[in-house]
């Protein structure tokens, strides 16, 4: 690769880019490249975070935040939380929800990515279509699925009925029974968010060197062992990143569940973000307690992340 001596544009580009080598040593360059991101994080992330932690030690109505009203209550909010049965219930629900949805997303997403990595007619179209659910605004996703789930005039029940699988159109009330409501919420979350996994994995599959496969084939490796030894090993890192990001994201997801079921029936879909909303932003507006729930959620995710990093480090050492 050589520097082309050509148009004035190129020269400018070279001069600007040139500072990397001549003026700023790599040691500084690293910092310079990270600095803008660091500023964004400090201002828009670390500060709000500290603010949340700070309010979790106060008893404060959200309307009094501005006037600095509210009093320091030490660990009261946390004690309240530990004794609150609803909190434990919501913690369990959230963990189950996030765990199941993320697992399904990764399995389905990877499978679809592998499928779309093969060549077939209309592949570009299918690849485009798979992205659709991720693009659809959440409100619209919820309303379409509510139409489909509806027990009186929904298409799902109508199809099941037409196929003779249920005896009456209204035989299944999807969002009205605890188990089927939970499953219903999981299905919508899967449908809406799995394209995320597909595209990232698909992109990663593009950069796996083909000669690895050639070599394996020459060595007589079968399809399955090629998949495990090459594909899976290559995409493993990105899968772990996705798993982590998705777990955090689903654990904090509010809209899908709230709009579909409001946490019902029988609180079967009452997740922690909904509890935060009910506690901090409506009703008695106990912002301190809401923050305490959020801080606990934060701590749990932090722990998950640390386990993950430990795991990574061990991998690295190997």
């Amino acid at each position: 690769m050589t520097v082309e001596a050509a148009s004035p544009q190129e020269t400018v580009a070279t001069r600007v880019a040139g500072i990397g080598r001549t003026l700023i040593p790599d040691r500084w360059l690293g910092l310079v490249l990270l600095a803008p991101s660091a500023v964004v994080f400090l201002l828009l992330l670390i500060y709000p975070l500290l603010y949340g932690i700070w309010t979790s030690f106060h008893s404060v109505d959200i309307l009094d935040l501005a006037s600095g009203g509210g009093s320091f209550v030490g660990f009261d909010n946390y004690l309240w939380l530990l004794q609150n049965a609803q909190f434990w219930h919501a913690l369990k629900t959230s963990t189950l929800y996030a765990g199941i949805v993320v697992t399904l997303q990764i399995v389905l997403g990877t499978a679809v990515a592998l499928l779309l990595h093969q060549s077939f007619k209309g592949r570009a179209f299918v690849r485009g279509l798979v992205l659709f659910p991720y693009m659809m605004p959440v409100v619209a996703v919820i309303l379409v699925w509510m139409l489909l789930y509806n027990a009186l005039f929904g298409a799902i029940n109508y199809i099941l009925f037409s196929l003779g699988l249920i005896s009456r159109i209204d035989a299944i009330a999807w969002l009205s029974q605890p188990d089927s409501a939970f499953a219903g919420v999981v299905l919508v979350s899967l449908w809406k968010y799995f394209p995320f996994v597909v595209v990232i994995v698909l992109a990663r599959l593009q950069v796996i060197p083909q000669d690895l496969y050639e070599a394996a084939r020459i060595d007589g490796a079968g399809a399955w062992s090629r998949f495990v030894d090459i594909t899976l090993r290559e995409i493993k890192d990105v899968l772990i990143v996705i798993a982590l990001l998705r777990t955090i994201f689903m654990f904090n997801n509010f809209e899908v569940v709230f709009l579909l079921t409001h946490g019902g029936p029988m609180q079967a879909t009452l997740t922690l973000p909904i509890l935060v909303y009910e506690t901090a932003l409506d009703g008695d507006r106990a912002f301190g307690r809401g923050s305490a729930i959020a801080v606990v959620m934060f701590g749990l995710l932090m722990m998950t992340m640390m386990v993950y990093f430990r795991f990574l480090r061990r991998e690295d050492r190997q």
Partner: protein
Amino acid sequence: MTRSFRRSLAQGRTYLLVILLLLFVGFPLFWMLMSSGKLNSDIVRIPPVWIPFLPTLEHYEELFEVTQFGRWFLNSLLVCSLSTISAVTLGVLGAYSLSRLKVRGKELLGRSVLLAYMFPGVLLVIPLVLVFTRIGLMNSQVGLALAYLTFALPFVMWVMRDFLASVPVDLEEAAMIDGASRLEALRDVVLPQAFPGIIATGIFAFLFAWNEYLFAAVLVRSHDLQTLPPAMANFASAMDTRWGLIMAASTLATLPMAIAFAFVQKYLITGLGAGGVKG
């Protein structure tokens, strides 16, 4: 079993799976599209109206005659482009630094970028309002784009870090021995290799912003400045749901994006031209 028979069997299996995938992904989309062209009375009819017999454009007409849909669409486009471009630029540079250069404390920063995701948005938004008021970016589209950076940037950095790590260092070193500076090597050697990743993360940074509701609703208030998700949400209040209108709006919010991304996604493949890693 002959080889060609086995191949066509595999082909058949592929197509079968693709059809299943299309049904799963496509049916709700089909339903959205169909509902947007149905009379309100037909949307909730049983047996369902599979293909609207009397297609109506009334919902689309209402969208443009009664609401400011066009304006919201442009607002969304603006905010999302702004936040995506900043996120990808900052994120790729940051990721490069994390994966290639020695920076003290980079591991700490690398991890802390994930903090953004760990705190529920509903509580993040109040202190964000404080910050934005202070710097004069409340009720501003630039402010909203900046807020989206908190989600998009960590994501781009994290995924790109892995992508950049998968680009062999020797290619880069070869370029630098040839006289390229580090940034030139990044631009000419590393980025082309990581291009599928840039496109993929860019798509998601964009779509995250395209879909986001809460920040958009709280940080930008004026009706004229609003982006699509909060503006559309008004079609479906708890009391009164305008099924047809919201289906028409979602069709229009989804379709152009899908077409645009169908175009962009081919870069997932063709981005690999230059490097020669693919063998």
